[in-house]
């Protein structure tokens, strides 16, 4: 509660929180909020490429679909991909980092070297290669993203665990006869949870951006799924006339990624006093 109150007092963090909450609301209430919910799957050629108006708030696309309604349903796709892919990356990365950081032997060296291999190319490149191999489907996008992003959490947890390893409270727990798993789960993990939460929040933004790139290249969920990146790709054939077609999904991506970034920065300030804003931070 105290955390939340401090978060709300930070204006930009509050903005981030509001944006993320709006994304969740859009995803959950897409049906009641949409003005033309049937346009997500149905074609309506007579009304194609109409400019924004009172009826079609953000205009219509090449199939006559209402862009505002399609964006709402697209929020579901974006949210689903980001949450599941990031969770999988956390589920793989955190245990790897814990084990590698807790022990100081060949296995930890090997685990960290493996994560280095994944970090040796930009994530987008690897994700594109994997997504292309698996074929355009939502579960493949999720898989590609989690395979490329887990090393970020492994690295973070590794570094934090390493620095905690010689703390008195960890040594005390070991001296009392706690098993390694118990020490990692009950003593190390709670101490590093706040950095993991911050990294995960900011990581959601990165995942959404990469997912949009995959959609843009045609590697995302196939049509008629209203995926934001694909909508932008489709709009290119109708520029410069149908500018709203390209603008709307891009603004949606921008706002959502910004929301997660701001929220992550705010959370860092609140949860992790060592790294106040202005300190060293990654994207």
């Amino acid at each position, binding site marked *: 509660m105290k955390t939340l109150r401090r978060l709300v007092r930070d204006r930009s963090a509050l903005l981030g929180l509001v944006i993320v909450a709006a994304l969740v609301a859009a995803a959950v209430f897409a049906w009641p909020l949409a003005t033309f919910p049937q346009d997500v799957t149905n074609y309506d050629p007579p009304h194609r490429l109409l400019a924004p108006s009172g009826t079609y708030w953000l205009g219509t696309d090449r199939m006559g679909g209402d862009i505002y309604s399609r964006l709402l349903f697209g929020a579901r796709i974006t949210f689903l991909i980001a949450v599941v892919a990031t969770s999988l990356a956390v589920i793989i990365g955190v245990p790897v980092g814990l084990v590698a950081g807790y022990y100081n032997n060949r296995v930890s060296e090997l685990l960290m070297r493996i994560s280095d291999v994944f970090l040796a190319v930009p994530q987008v490149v*690897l994700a594109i290669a994997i997504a292309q191999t698996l074929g355009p489907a939502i579960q493949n996008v999720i898989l590609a993203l989690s395979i490329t992003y887990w090393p970020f959490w492994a690295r973070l947890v590794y570094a934090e665990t390493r620095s905690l390893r010689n703390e008195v409270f960890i040594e005390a727990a070991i001296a009392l006869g706690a098993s390694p798993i118990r020490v990692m789960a009950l003593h190390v993990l709670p101490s590093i949870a706040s950095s993991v939460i911050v990294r995960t929040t900011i990581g959601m933004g990165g995942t959404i951006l990469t997912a949009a790139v995959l959609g843009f290249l045609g590697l995302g969920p196939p049509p008629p799924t209203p995926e934001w990146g694909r909508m932008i790709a489709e709009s290119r054939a109708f*520029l410069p006339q149908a500018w709203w077609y390209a603008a709307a999904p*891009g603004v949606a991506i921008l706002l959502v990624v910004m929301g997660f970034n701001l929220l992550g920065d705010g959370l860092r300030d609140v949860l992790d006093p060592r790294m106040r804003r202005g300190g060293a931070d990654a994207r």
Partner: protein
Amino acid sequence: MIVRRVLWMPPTLFGLVLIVFAISHVIPSDPARVMAGENASAEQVQVLRHKYGLDLPLPQQFLRYVGDVATGSMGTSLFTQRPVAEDLWSRLPATLELALYAIVLAVVVGVPLGVVAALRRNSLLDHMVRIVTITGLAMAAFWLAILLQLLFSMWLGLTPVQGRIDGWGPDPITGFYTIDALLRGDWTTLGQSLRYIALPMLTLALPAMATIVRFTRAGVLNVMSSNFVFYQAAMGIPRRRVVWKYILRSALIGTLTQIGLIFGLLIANAVVVETVFDWPGLGSFAVSSILQSDYNAIMSFTLFIGVVFILVNLMVDVAQAVLDPRGR
């Protein structure tokens, strides 16, 4: 430290080859069939399959590929039938030219902006810079590319929509069209190539600039509160000199460590931005070979980027050790 990293390069690259090989060989589609075309007979497909060793067991194909890479050849593109290494080299200057201009622009604009934002903390300027950086980091690069194209090329007609040059480029000296044109005194070509490069360069520069501003600002704020700055101020050293000489030097070390990250960002964005602007570089090559399931091309591209990426990070480490005696 640095020796250790150099020693780890080959195993890391080997791991990378292994991963990419595993990825690209799970592909259910048959590249030999794709290459032979729709109407090819089963025998023709078989001939192609044999020619490229696609009928060998996977471990053997892998060894063959590793052998090729070790000897500097990167195999033949399954699609263009040309050696991949040749394609990569011929496309490298286009991407380098773009990336270099983008990073220079990002540094030249980003560093002073970050310093000024830190000096006038919480001023209107600082808030504006902050809005720009936050936006720059949250924007999808391909979308920014399309917006710039829409505004400058389609509506205002100031720049070409796509491509790198009309017709053929100037006779290569460096492979950078702008520099080659300058060296040959060909002003028309120079102007033209500058108009072509402007938008992709801007698109790539913005997120890189946002990162640089952020770290420079944070670094300057950090150094400004340190004791040596108070001491220098007390000694009566002019503030301008303290800021632009002493503070900046310490603050830039923090920014420098991010060059690796920024470079990764540039390459990642180049992949899509080159595709949007139809820029004939490595990024658009990668996208087209990925979309054509061209194994060899994908593997070689990934490996190529991996090598460059590792080298850049290594150079950053060395530069940091030189600039920052504390790290030694």
